[in-house]
C-alpha cells in the first residue's frame, strides 16, 4: 500500500513536469529556448515516471530493466538535444540573446 502511494506520487509528479515541459515548448520565445522546455520532459518528467514504476516492480529484475531504460534515456537525450541545437546553429539560426561573452579561462 505504501509502495503504491509512493509510486503514484512519483508518477504524477513526473506527469506534471512532462506537461510543464510541453507548456514551455509553446510559451518560450525562440527555438533555442524551447529546447530547454523539452529538456524538462526528457529528464525529470521521464525520470520521475520511471522511478515511480520501479516501486511497483513485481520482481527486482523488472526494476533493473527500468533503471537501464532511465540510463539509456539520460545518456541519449542530451546527445540528441545537442545534435538538434547544433544543426540549427550550423543552418544559420541565431539565438535571440542580449550579449555574447567570453569566459575568463580558468584552470
Amino acid at each position, binding site marked *: 500500500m505504501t509502495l503504491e502511494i509512493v509510486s503514484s506520487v512519483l508518477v504524477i509528479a513526473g506527469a506534471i513536469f512532462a506537461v510543464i515541459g510541453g507548456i*514551455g515548448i509553446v510559451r518560450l520565445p525562440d527555438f533555442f*529556448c524551447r529546447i*530547454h522546455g523539452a529538456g524538462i520532459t526528457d*529528464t525529470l518528467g521521464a525520470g520521475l515516471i520511471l522511478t515511480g514504476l520501479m516501486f511497483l516492480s513485481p520482481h527486482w529484475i523488472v526494476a533493473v530493466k527500468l533503471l537501464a531504460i532511465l540510463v539509456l534515456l539520460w545518456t541519449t537525450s542530451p546527445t540528441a538535444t*545537442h545534435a538538434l*541545437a547544433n544543426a*540549427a546553429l550550423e543552418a544559420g539560426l541565431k539565438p535571440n540573446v542580449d550579449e555574447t*561573452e567570453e*569566459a575568463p579561462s580558468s584552470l
Partner: protein
Amino acid sequence: MTYTAGLVTILAAVWLLLSGYLDKPLLLGLGAASVAFVVFISLRMRIVDDEGLPIQLPAGLARYLPWLVVEIVKANVDVALRIVRPGLPIRPRVIRVRAGQRTDVGRVIYANSITLTPGTVTIDTEGDHITVHALTEEAAEGVLAGDMDRRVARVEGRG
C-alpha cells in the same frame, strides 16, 4: 586484454540482467555465443580501448552522478517554475567556456551534463571550448563558475 575481459564481463552481466535466465542451459549457451560474437566484432572494429570501454571512469562517476542528479532536479524545478510563471522571467544568453577535461570522453561527459541540466544546452563544441545557450542569468553564471567543469575533470582522474 584487460579491456576484452571487461567487455566480456559487462556484456555477460547485461545479458543475464535483461534475460533473467540462470537455469536454462540452451539459453545460457546462446547468450554466451552472442557475447562471444559481439566481442569478436568489437575487436575486429578495434573499438575495445579506453574510449570504447572507459573502465577507468566508473569509480569517478560513482561520486559524480549523485551530485549531477541533485543539480538536474534543482535546475528542473527552477526552469519549470519560470515556465509556469505569468511574466516568463527568462533572459537567454550565449556563453563560451573552456572545458578543462583532458580527454574527449571527459569533454563529452561535461557537454552532456550541461545539456542534461535544464536551463543550459551545449550548442557548439570546437577544440576545448564549448558554446552554451543559457535560459537565465543564474544558469549562465552556474556554468561560468566552473564547478561542474572541475568535477568532471576529477571523474577522468589524473594519469
